[in-house]
């Protein structure tokens, strides 16, 4: 018994002595400094491109606020808070120049993100290179991070893999959702992107016929300014061999709406598939009519139902969604611009965290070498010049269908090597 008492007593004394000693022993961590990370975004806020630009800017700034709420970006002994400034490039060259000027020379930002305007974005690249600050832009619909051009060593291209996506887009869709599809009619917008896509798909003709039993019965281009798709659709309707599916790669939202509506009008009741995403499903349905809209497949893919998105970013995207809903009352649909600006911002933030410094050199090196995590998984810079070079890459995409009044993901094409 004695020993037991002594032991307990010893323990108590030890504890009484130990706790203050421990507290003394651990040195108190010093108070943290706070800094400001100015990030500018150049986005079309006026002019015909603004339907894409305005929500992009808003989502990105919501994201920036959330990052600040989570305690900013700790680097060394400093906590950096993001101040996010948006500037209007009117989706024109001179507008882009003006906004580059405003951001880099007047606002003196640490980095520039956003913008969806190939290849005018290179104007920003030039200014950024001159001022030596990192620029993450969407210069071309290519996957992953890329160095844009040797001339602009600080400029990176983080984009959505449309061009690569279409390579197995239809086969995947067929195997997943539309097994009965045998013949495709192909119409592309007659701009550079559309032509690239058309050539690409034509080059895959044999492969599709052999491996997937898909036959291309029609292909055509409609001019950029064309508003009414009836001429082409009626040709498709009059084909000897009925088309089971209309693939309007590279069609913009208005084009898609017109194709869906008018194909319905002339009695072509077949699925209409396109690669780009919708801006606003509700309005889209109103434009092309409820019945017609039910045939529409797009690559609607938000981070919250994207397989490769890390839990951290899934959660973040859901929070952004919530903030948006509280602010607008309406649901944040995919097209309201996760892909570009907010994603660029995310990439920049994680690059800064990885580099653990805000020096341009370090960040650029990180972006070039390390795997960068963003809303759509993790990408590594290819180091190649973006323009004109076709490359084999993995891509991630989801095709979703309009069901009732919202988009439902149909099939996820995750991490497949392109043939």
């Amino acid at each position, binding site marked *: 018994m004695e020993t037991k008492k002594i032991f307990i007593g010893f323990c108590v004394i030890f504890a009484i002595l130990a706790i203050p000693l421990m507290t003394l022993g651990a040195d108190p961590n010093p108070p943290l400094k706070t800094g400001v990370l100015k990030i500018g975004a150049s986005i079309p806020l006026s002019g015909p491109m603004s339907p894409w630009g305005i929500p992009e800017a808003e989502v990105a700034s919501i994201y920036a606020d959330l990052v600040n709420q989570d305690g900013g970006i700790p680097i060394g002994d400093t906590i950096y808070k993001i101040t996010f400034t948006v500037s209007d490039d009117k989706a024109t060259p001179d507008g882009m120049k003006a906004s580059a000027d405003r951001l880099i020379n007047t606002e003196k930002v640490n980095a520039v993100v956003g913008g969806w305007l190939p290849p005018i974005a290179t104007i920003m690249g030039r200014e950024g290179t*001159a001022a030596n600050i990192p620029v993450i832009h969407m210069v071309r619909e290519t996957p992953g991070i890329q160095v844009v051009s040797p001339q602009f060593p600080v400029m990176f291209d983080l984009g959505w893999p449309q061009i690569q996506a279409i390579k197995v887009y239809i086969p995947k869709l067929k195997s997943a959702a539309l097994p009965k599809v045998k013949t495709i009619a192909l119409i592309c917008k007659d701009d550079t992107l559309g032509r690239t896509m058309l050539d690409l798909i034509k080059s895959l003709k044999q492969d599709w016929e052999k491996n997937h039993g898909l036959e291309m019965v029609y292909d055509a281009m409609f001019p950029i300014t064309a508003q009414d798709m009836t001429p082409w659709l009626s040709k498709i309707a009059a084909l000897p061999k009925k088309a089971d599916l209309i693939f309007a790669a590279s069609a913009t939202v208005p084009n898609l709406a017109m194709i869906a509506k008018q194909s319905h009008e002339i009695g072509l009741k077949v699925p209409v598939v396109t690669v780009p995403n919708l801006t606003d499903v509700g309005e889209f349905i109103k434009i092309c009519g409820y019945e017609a809209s039910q045939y529409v497949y797009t690559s609607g893919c938000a981070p919250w139902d994207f397989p490769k998105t890390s839990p951290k970013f899934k959660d973040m995207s859901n929070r952004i969604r919530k903030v948006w809903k509280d602010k607008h009352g309406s649901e944040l649909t995919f097209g309201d611009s996760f892909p570009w600006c907010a994603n660029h911002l995310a990439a920049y933030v994680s690059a800064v965290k990885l580099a653990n410094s805000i020096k341009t050199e370090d960040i650029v090196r990180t972006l070039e070498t390390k795997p960068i995590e963003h809303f759509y998984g993790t990408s590594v810079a290819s180091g190649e010049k973006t323009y004109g070079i076709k490359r084999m890459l993995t891509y991630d995409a989801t095709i979703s269908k309009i069901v009732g009044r919202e988009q439902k993901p149909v099939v996820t094409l995750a991490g497949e090597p392109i043939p």
Partner: protein
Amino acid sequence: MKMTLTKTSPAMKVLTAVLILGFIAFAHTFLPHRWQHICIMWAIWSTVGMGWLVILRVGQFSAGQAVFLCIGGYAAGVLMLKLNAPFWVALVLSAIFCSVVALIVGAIILRLKGLYFLVISLVFSEIVRLTIAATDYLGASEGLWDMPIPKKIGPVVFSTKQGWLYLFVFILILAALTFWRMENSRTGKIYAYIGASPDLAQSFGLYFMKYRVQAYVISAFFTGLVGAALAVYLGAINPEGFTFYYSLVAQIVAILGGVGSIVWGPLLGSLLYNVFDEYLVYIPGARSLLMGLLLIAVIFFLPEGLISLKNSFLKKKGGNPVVPH
């Protein structure tokens, strides 16, 4: 249209020179970046506005002035990117190319009168723009990009804003002096005669087409020059950069300033326009609303343009006959 500053007295010349030099010195030392940008835009649009006003002088209202910016810019782009021509050669050549186009087209379309010319000039500019937007050699809808930065000449470096500011101000001075001389010489008078009544002018042996084409070509030359320089300054151009709105701006700056004076009008108008364009708020929609209301307000209270403010200060002195310059 009374012409107020029609006497190039030596004093006025000296004053102008001093003003210009002072401006450049100021620009070099004090001017903040934002204002350097404004000044560049000011110089650009002043020159374009003057070009537009010369065409108005011969009685033709051109609604497609942006076409010359477009042609000039693309000519420069093709020369530098496809043919690797040095900047200065490209600059001059594209201006000349622009005026040749103007010569050919003008000889055809300048016969039309009033609204019909207005429309056909608009049509012409749209044809050029859309054709470029459809032509792969010219980069189609993506346009030309990645234009090389010109080499420095003497102290003027084109990797900085100042360098470009000097270039554009130089072009502006060139244009302003030319137009000044034209307006205050017989040429300007002849243009005014033809603008007032082509038939009467013709009955005095003045062939209106000759002078109309002349004015058109000169206007095209300077606008093309600006367009070429602008394209290289931006580093990338696409057809979206030469739409209907840009032709409108050319008219706006000229008329805001006042069509009464071929030099001072655009200078004033372009200054006002660009300052507003830079400083107006970036709430979507609000800026174009405000710009619209502003235009209405200015034109409503000063139908003669800003120049009429100055006219109300210094009266035109008539009476003693003077030998025309």
